[in-house]
């Protein structure tokens, strides 16, 4: 059996950062096990931008952020094995994984669990009705559309206003679907304010707060959902039903930490959230097994996941070397702006904070925490603009995530998405940052690859 100082389960942002942290804190051998064929985890399907503002100070797409994290892990010399599904973990840290080359067993000095989370399903929230085709969790739909080139539907209702649901409302719209409604049980959207702004308001997608879906009907494919208003006790109010004909329902109703592996090792879980219970050093109830990111507690931003991953990795190395463990970074996720954009105010999208900036007639701004807010608000008032992110199809059938080289006028976003739809990516290898289409529409804006191929 091979021995590693630190074995990291999961190659998403948390696991890759943990590899970096472990190596930098003196672990001699670090192995990252990733079940997918490439590292990056869910970031690979998150082709939109908004990642990296905290860690890198720039606005990156998911694939770009994943590539940076991958590079950082490689630079410190961590070994990464993809196509490796961990199926066993013991309390004395023997890891078993399945690969196409055979079963792999490794003994670890310390383990970091970076197994992420899964989506809450229709079954789990027990919506009554039939079970036709056309009901997807938002993340599964994102995976299908952005990595498998499969279109999930045409007339779409989204239940829940989690960030993935909001992002998918825009994504579906840009690919020609009609998003009829986003329905949220609470009186506040649960996703970030910047996403409400950029993904719903930009496209005039109706948001129904204080409502839920009380019936789903369709014999084969989804035909209609029924939306009802909720009273203060979260019970549907009879007589408030609205029937919405649609062919697709996306669910963005919460994320659940994924901890089957932690359970095998005997690590304690929070009975309510299903997250691993850790101390302030990110160590679980099993000594030498650490946890970070969404497998511990679902966080709003990948940046926070990475920051936690670094500490978990450092502490795994410290555990092996008999050094003192470090405290985890402050949990800052609740500092992110959530809520409804306010009338008269402009919600800054330059960072996840989402300052509400008001502009006086004389051009002075209020409410912004930094100069970026002033710059953004003035620009937004004068000529609002957005970076368009989408995909181009490579000749071999692979989707290449792309973005515009700079923001384009807001009212051009849908137009460009439509114009770009039939245009293929060039043949041959593609590296991130490569110009795939040079100024295609005569506005001095290029289309850049954000992933490699």
């Amino acid at each position: 059996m091979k021995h590693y100082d630190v074995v990291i389960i999961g190659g998403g942002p948390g696991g890759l950062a943990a590899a970096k942290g472990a190596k930098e804190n003196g672990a001699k051998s670090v192995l990252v096990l990733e079940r997918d064929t490439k590292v990056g985890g869910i970031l690979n399907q998150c082709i939109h931008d908004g990642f990296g503002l905290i860690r890198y100070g720039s606005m990156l797409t998911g694939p770009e952020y994943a590539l940076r994290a991958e590079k950082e892990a490689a630079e410190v010399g961590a070994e990464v094995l993809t196509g490796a599904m961990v199926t066993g973990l013991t309390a004395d840290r023997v890891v078993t994984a399945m690969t196409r080359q055979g079963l792999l067993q490794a003994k670890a000095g310390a383990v970091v669990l970076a197994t992420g989370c899964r989506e809450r399903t229709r079954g789990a929230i027990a919506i009554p009705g039939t079970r036709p085709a056309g009901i997807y969790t938002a993340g599964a739909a994102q995976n299908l559309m952005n990595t498998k080139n499969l279109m999930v539907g045409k007339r779409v209702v989204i239940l829940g206003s989690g960030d993935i649901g909001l992002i998918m409302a825009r994504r579906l719209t840009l690919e020609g679907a009609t998003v009829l409604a986003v329905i949220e049980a609470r009186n506040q959207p649960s996703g970030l304010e910047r996403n409400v702004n950029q993904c719903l308001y930009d496209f005039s997608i109706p948001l129904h707060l204080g409502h839920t879906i009380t019936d789903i009907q369709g014999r084969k494919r989804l035909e209609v959902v029924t939306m009802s208003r909720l009273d203060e006790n979260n019970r549907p109010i009879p007589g408030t039903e609205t029937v919405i004909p649609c062919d697709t329902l996306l669910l963005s109703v919460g994320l659940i930490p994924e901890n089957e592996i932690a359970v095998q090792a005997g690590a304690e879980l929070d009975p309510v959230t299903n997250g691993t219970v850790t101390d302030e050093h990110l160590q679980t109830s099993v000594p030498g097994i650490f946890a970070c990111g969404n497998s511990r507690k679902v966080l709003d931003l990948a940046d926070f996941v990475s920051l936690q991953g670094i500490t978990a990795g450092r502490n795994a190395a410290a555990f092996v070397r008999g050094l003192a463990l470090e405290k985890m970074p402050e949990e800052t996720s609740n500092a992110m702006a959530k809520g409804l954009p306010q009338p008269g105010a402009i919600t800054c999208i330059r960072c996840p904070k989402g300052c509400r900036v008001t502009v006086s007639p004389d051009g002075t701004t209020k409410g912004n925490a930094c100069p970026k807010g002033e710059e953004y608000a003035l620009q937004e008032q004068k000529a609002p603009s957005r970076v368009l992110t989408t995909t181009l199809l490579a000749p071999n059938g692979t989707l290449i995530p792309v973005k515009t080289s700079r923001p384009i006028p807001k009212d051009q976003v849908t137009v460009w998405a439509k114009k770009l739809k039939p245009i293929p990516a060039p043949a041959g290898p593609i590296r991130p940052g490569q110009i795939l289409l040079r100024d295609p529409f005569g506005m001095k804006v290029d289309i850049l690859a954000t992933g490699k191929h």
Partner: protein
Amino acid sequence: MTHTFDILIIGGGAVGCAVARELSRYDVSIALLEKEADVAAGASGRNSAVVHAGFNNKPGSLMAKLCVEGNHGFEAACRELDVPYRKTGKLLVAFDQADLDTLARLKAQGEENGCQGLRLLSREELRARLPQVGGIGAFESPETAVFDPFQYTVALAENAQKNGVQFFLNTKVTAIERTAKGFRVTAGDQVFTARRVVNCAGLHSAEVAALAGLNRYHIYPCRGEYFILDKTDVLPMPIYPAPKAGIGGLGVHLTPTIHGNLIIGPSAEYIEDPADTASTQVVMDKLWAEAQQLLPGLNGRQIIGSYAGIRPKQAPPGEGGFRDFVIREEVSCPGLVNLIGIESPGLTASLPIGRMVAGILSLSMDMTEKKDFDPTRKGILRFRDQSPEEQARLIAEDPDYGEVVCRCQTVTKAEIRQAIENPLGARTISAIKYRAWATTGRCSGGYCLPKIAEILTEEYGMAPEAISHRGDGSHLFTGRVKA
């Protein structure tokens, strides 16, 4: 196009497939017509997945006789057909004196029917056995078992096919005419001629009988809703309440499945539309409340899904209870064997029903046993159940065994491929689900469905629009995002 057979079976539920399998022992040509895209599409795939012992049924009835016979042969059949089966026994729990009286009566009835080992348990014995269960006494049936009804039906069909039965899926019978030699059966643009017709159409058996000119039957659809809970070892055996008079089912019960989940249900509600398998808020609330009475401390966060099945009842609303199975060749329509009202315990009784149909047919046609009948069928090897040594060997032989597609159930790509390439040619997501057991876990396919879709499009060349949940009209995708 006209196809000619000796015997046509209409309906590919467990009963139709068991009839097909039992008739395939004989030297006759047989076809089975199923309107849906796969077998087990109706009640056979929407039930409690329990092999009943037979104490619930009236002594002397076909239900009682065939159920007991089916139970006693079930384990051997599952071994022949490579179907997951576990004899768990079951407990019926009493909450008051009337319930205790009912249990005593059931014990006597069961013994009369030929059930073995029935026993009444005192409150103390119940507590000692299952401290987590509520109730003041219980009745134990050691012969009750749990199994996989999808795989059972598929296995019967595959075994029948292996022995020469031809399966026609997506083939809905639209007309039945009597001819000099037998029957002319139309299904869309296909025509079948046959000497005998066996009506195993379940919920639609009365309609099929009517197509042949017999209007005497009526089926009342009676819906049963269920919850499915995540894997748990909270119960070692099914727990039922003592049955109440007048309901059209066995009462809401808790059943550990052969796959490790827990099922709650079913309700019993007469409905108009035999295809309305919706769950309803009212019943969902009721199921949960009743389940908690049986097993206080159930955790709602464990729910991963819900489903509903429709019982083909002959007893109309108001009458309730059970009317006995009708299994007979019609005097007014010689050559037509009708199977009407095969509700619970139809799955348990399916193979004896098949043998009974063979007996009926042998009275009027030559049924010579084949010399080369093969009673065995091999299912898809479950990678996760193999020893580490065997797993290593499998991966070395086929690297697709080393690639996990469904994370919740640890289903490998090799198993998915075998499910896609199933002998019946059913190529829907449901067909793959039931054969490989992918998409059935706590993430409901969130992880594996995109992977399965990719395998179907990239490796099997399916058009995205052709990938369906359960056949025509239930397409998953409207096309490519980028063409």
